[in-house]
């Protein structure tokens, strides 16, 4: 099964942002917008739900902090207690200031790495994956808006032309999802 989509290309981030608003206002569904760099406000204009990655990041940070507390307790207090610099390892609490750098680093480490991995998974990106962007120019200086066609080709083309598209192509795509 295949369907038709319009690829409208733009060469300015402000123009594409306005175009997205106009296309949405005319009640067309926008499948995707491909950009060479992040455009602030584009997600809101497209009507995408706000990101929840901040919440995930917070939870990952808490996880990292917990791991650090366990790690310092297990290695320095429980399993192999040592007297370092006249500070005997009787309890975790008394030695806590020495562990703060570890707690800080592991919090950051967990939050950062797991957040990147989460982002890749949510964006369905993994190593050796074939690139999804339909036009290599979207990695350079062009913006591409993908709008599915439902028998309204002419009207859609006219609208996109009006929004300042520099190039409009109709393409057949295999239904991937």
């Amino acid at each position, binding site marked *: 099964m295949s369907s038709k989509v319009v690829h409208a290309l733009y060469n300015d981030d402000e123009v594409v942002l306005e175009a997205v608003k106009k296309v949405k206002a005319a009640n067309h569904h926008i499948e995707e917008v491909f950009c060479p760099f992040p455009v*602030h*406000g584009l997600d809101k204009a497209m009507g995408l739900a706000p990101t929840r990655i*901040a919440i995930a990041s917070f939870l990952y940070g808490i996880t990292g902090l917990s791991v650090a507390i366990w790690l310092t307790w297990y290695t320095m207090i429980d399993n192999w207690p040592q007297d370092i610099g006249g*500070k005997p390892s009787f309890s975790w609490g008394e030695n806590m*200031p*020495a562990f*703060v750098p570890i707690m800080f680093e592991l919090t950051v480490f967990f939050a950062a790495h797991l957040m990147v991995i989460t982002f890749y998974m949510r964006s369905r990106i993994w190593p050796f994956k074939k690139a999804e962007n339909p036009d290599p120019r979207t990695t350079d200086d062009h913006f591409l808006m993908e709008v599915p066609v439902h028998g309204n080709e002419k009207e859609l083309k006219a609208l996109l032309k009006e929004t300042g598209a520099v190039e409009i192509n109709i393409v057949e795509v295999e239904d991937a999802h």
Partner: protein
Amino acid sequence: MYQFSGKLKIFSLALIVVGVLGIGYGFLSTPSTPEEAMEMVAKNDDHGADHGEGHDTAKKEEHKDAGHATDAHGGDHDQKHAEHVMHQLQNRPWSAVYVALLFFLGISLLVLAFYAAQRVAQAGWSIVLFRVMEAITANLVPTSIIMLIFIILAGMHMSHLFVWMDPEVAATDEIIKGKSLWLNVPGWIARGIFYLVVWNAYRWFIRKNSIAEDTATDIKIYKRNYNASVIFLVFFMVTESMASWDWIMGLDPHWFSTLFGWYVLATLLVSALTVIAFVTIYLRSKGYLPKVNDSHIHDLAKFMFGFSVFWTYLWFAQFMLIWYADMPEETTYFAMRFSEYKTLFFSMLVMNFAFPVLLLLNSDFKSQPWFVIIGGLVILAGHYVDLFIMIMPGTVGGSWSFGIPELGATMFFLGIFIYTVFSAFAKADPVAKGNPFLQESEHFHYYNIEHHSGEDNHH
């Protein structure tokens, strides 16, 4: 144009008058004989066995600090102790004024430095706040004059906050003798005057030329202001560090910390940003800053959040190395604060780190004036406490308390602050309309937040 309202003027003058009365009361109620001092301490101990107990520990620390613990023999000791307490209590009103003075002087100075940094970075977002910042720096003038008087009085041995200035101590204490190249009265006075003159000279220059920008026809004045700000920032970084050694670290002359200048900078910088946010929110709520939007408030709150974390980083960097190395000459500083100022010491960490971080972590909260005000009040109180426990242990030791002299001094300087800042704001156009980045500042919108409509700003 903004009009400094009569009501606010009367309020600020009332604060100054009440403040002066409080300070005067502080000076009049100091003991003049050792016996009187012991009576006052005894009265205090009645309602706080805890405090009295801690007092003796402090005594030991203090004696060690001043380097005359060696001659503790018999009955003579009681008399010595009483004299010591008398000196501490005599120091109290001076210290109360000094804490408040440094707090307000430092805030005005750091607003000036932040403002200079905005010019040097050619920041776009903050132009609509320039006149607010300039107005706050006006407070540098009266606080500098009072600081100058304070420096001269200290140099004339009118106050005894700096133990190294005592000729007897300077002659006998080996450690202080070793530092006499830096810690000597003429040098100390000369340096203090030098810092104040440099800071005020830049402030005078930049304020005059910022107003000149408004009517300028070319970019020349703007460029000159940029150059002056670069030079000032270089001077500032060196003089701020040296001033914090001279004026704060010198109170504990045996102790030293190499990041002390940074630490003081962090304390004053986060307070300065909070004050900018407060004055901005106040003036905006009165309708005098129509170009300031929620994104500007959001950015100020981000700075408050960020520099609260920065302060904590420096505080901990200083604390942990001393705690870990455990060398007596370094740990005495924290031992004193742990024994005599424990509650303040720990509540300060909550107020300056835990509270602002948790309150201002959420992006949405940072553009809500009420959250910024609540967070800011705690930050300001926390950093006042921080300065308090930087200064008090070296001057009044265990005989500290927070009462009329401290409150009076704070009110006095707050009154001066309100008077100078708002009358300075009334003297210039509230918008720095000659700045080439003004338009960028007006359009400034942090993409992640919604701006409230004009009506919503008036609360």
